[in-house]
């Protein structure tokens, strides 16, 4: 029984770029429903508008056309309550220690001091940073800093968590382990997760449902359901279905990636341009 939490209807975004300003159709039209509690992932070629889609849902930028609703209420360029975001770039505040970083958003809630420190303590335990409460971000590794940002998002108890390539800057092993942690947090919090990634295996391993985004202007061209059990971790990559799902994603994504290359170097054979750039093939 799925309950709709987010609905995007015919959403598109046009930026005005350059001098003189010229319209750049970045995204859409996109129709998308997210169900409460599901783990949803989006893969797409770079520069296709994935992050724009996330910023639209987060209320960081208003859509040019169409409507976005979160829990039935429209979002129009204003961050709604109940949504948390973890960005790819390190967003920890270097002048605050880990506990103060995590408590950063709580001040607005006017909680009693006891409850506030209780919530910080719990969430630090959840992400495995209990021993680092008084450390400063500069003393932590990149993976730990990203966990600080995840903890800072979780402590607000969001009903929808948006993640924009949160593990993009981490090495492969750390990425897989962080994926396990993310699955565990998703189960424990019951929140809906919306994950943007360029790693096909990451999307396949983590998500209930995966959408492939096209080359710019980004549209959702394929939806894949993984049908994994809720109790799962990175060992799901051994599952016979894993390869089939990843292959299906890659089939669509490959075409769109080639289109993206063609967009950036017109007049060349996309496959050649791709190879001559020495771009690494996606896993």
């Amino acid at each position, binding site marked *: 029984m799925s309950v709709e939490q987010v609905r995007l209807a015919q959403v598109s975004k046009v930026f005005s770029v350059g001098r003189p300003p010229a319209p750049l159709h970045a995204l859409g039209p996109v129709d998308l429903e997210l169900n409460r509690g599901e783990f949803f992932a989006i893969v797409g070629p770079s520069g296709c508008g994935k992050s724009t889609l996330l910023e639209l849902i987060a209320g960081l930028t208003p859509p040019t056309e169409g409507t976005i609703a979160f829990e039935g209420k429209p979002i129009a360029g204003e961050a709604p309550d109940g949504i948390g975001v973890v960005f790819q770039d*390190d*967003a920890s505040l270097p002048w605050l220690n880990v506990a103060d970083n995590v408590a950063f958003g709580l001040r607005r809630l006017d909680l009693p001091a006891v409850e506030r420190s209780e919530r910080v303590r719990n969430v630090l335990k959840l992400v495995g940073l209990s021993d680092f409460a008084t450390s400063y971000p500069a003393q932590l590794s990149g993976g730990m800093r990203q966990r600080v940002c995840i903890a800072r998002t979780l402590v607000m108890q969001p009903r929808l968590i948006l993640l924009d390539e949160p593990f993009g800057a981490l090495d492969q092993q750390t990425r897989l382990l962080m994926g396990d942690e993310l699955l565990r947090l998703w189960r424990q919090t019951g929140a809906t997760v919306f994950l943007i990634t360029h790693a096909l295996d990451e999307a396949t391993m983590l998500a209930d449902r995966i959408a492939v985004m096209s080359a710019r202007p980004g549209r959702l061209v394929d939806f894949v359901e993984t049908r994994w059990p809720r109790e799962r971790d990175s060992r799901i990559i051994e599952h016979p279905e894993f390869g089939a799902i990843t292959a299906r994603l890659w089939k669509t994504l490959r075409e769109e990636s080639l289109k993206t290359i063609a967009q950036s170097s017109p007049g060349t054979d996309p496959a050649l341009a791709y190879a001559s750039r020495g771009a690494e093939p996606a896993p």
Partner: protein
Amino acid sequence: MTRLVVYRTLVIGGILALLEVLCLTGAIDKITMQAPHLMVRDLFRMLVSGRMNGAIVKTLSNTVVALLLALSIGIVVGAVLHRWRALRDTLDPLFATYYAVPVFAFYPFFIVVFGLGDLPQILIAFMLGVVAMIVNTLNGLDRVPPVLVKTARIMRLSQLDTALRVTLPAAAPHIVTGVKLAVAYAFIGVIGSEFIMSRGGIGYEISFAYTSFDNATMYPLIVLILLASVAINAVLSRWEQRLLVRRGMRQS
């Protein structure tokens, strides 16, 4: 690190010893300069007698007033200009050439308008310091990572809270640079204008002692200014160092 400290101490000690020898042997005559140990003795006597307390208090309080004005107005103007692109672009040439203009040239005009009180000196010191503060605040705000501003919006912080809790703290290392400059400029502004024309203050007393060949007053006052500015700068540098080490921008 410790070796550097030894070298530096040796250089300073060597210069002082050389001066001491030159003064005591008469290579530098008494009318020109006193031996360093006499400067320190006279400074001690002067502070104990309290005869310069009025001048010291006047200079320090004027400097503090000018400094506080430069810091608060500099940060606020910097933050406003950062948001107000058109005004910033308009004022940009002014900031770029500001320190090419000797602000002291306006001092006689200020005296004509505001009289020979503390106000013209405070104004000169403020004018010298405020632009360093504005420019460094802008510089720091330009370098705030956009992801921190986005985080503030996700956390639904008001514009004021975003400035106070995110962008200004993020810009703090650059703002501290502005503070260091503003402190130096405030001292230069106040003491410099006391030299030119005033009715009191350390600069006035040095200038008065100089014209009356009173080396027993002039040199101790110079030493006092040196000690004060070095001490203030040391405190600010420590603060800056702590800030940078905490952010991993410098080794401890």
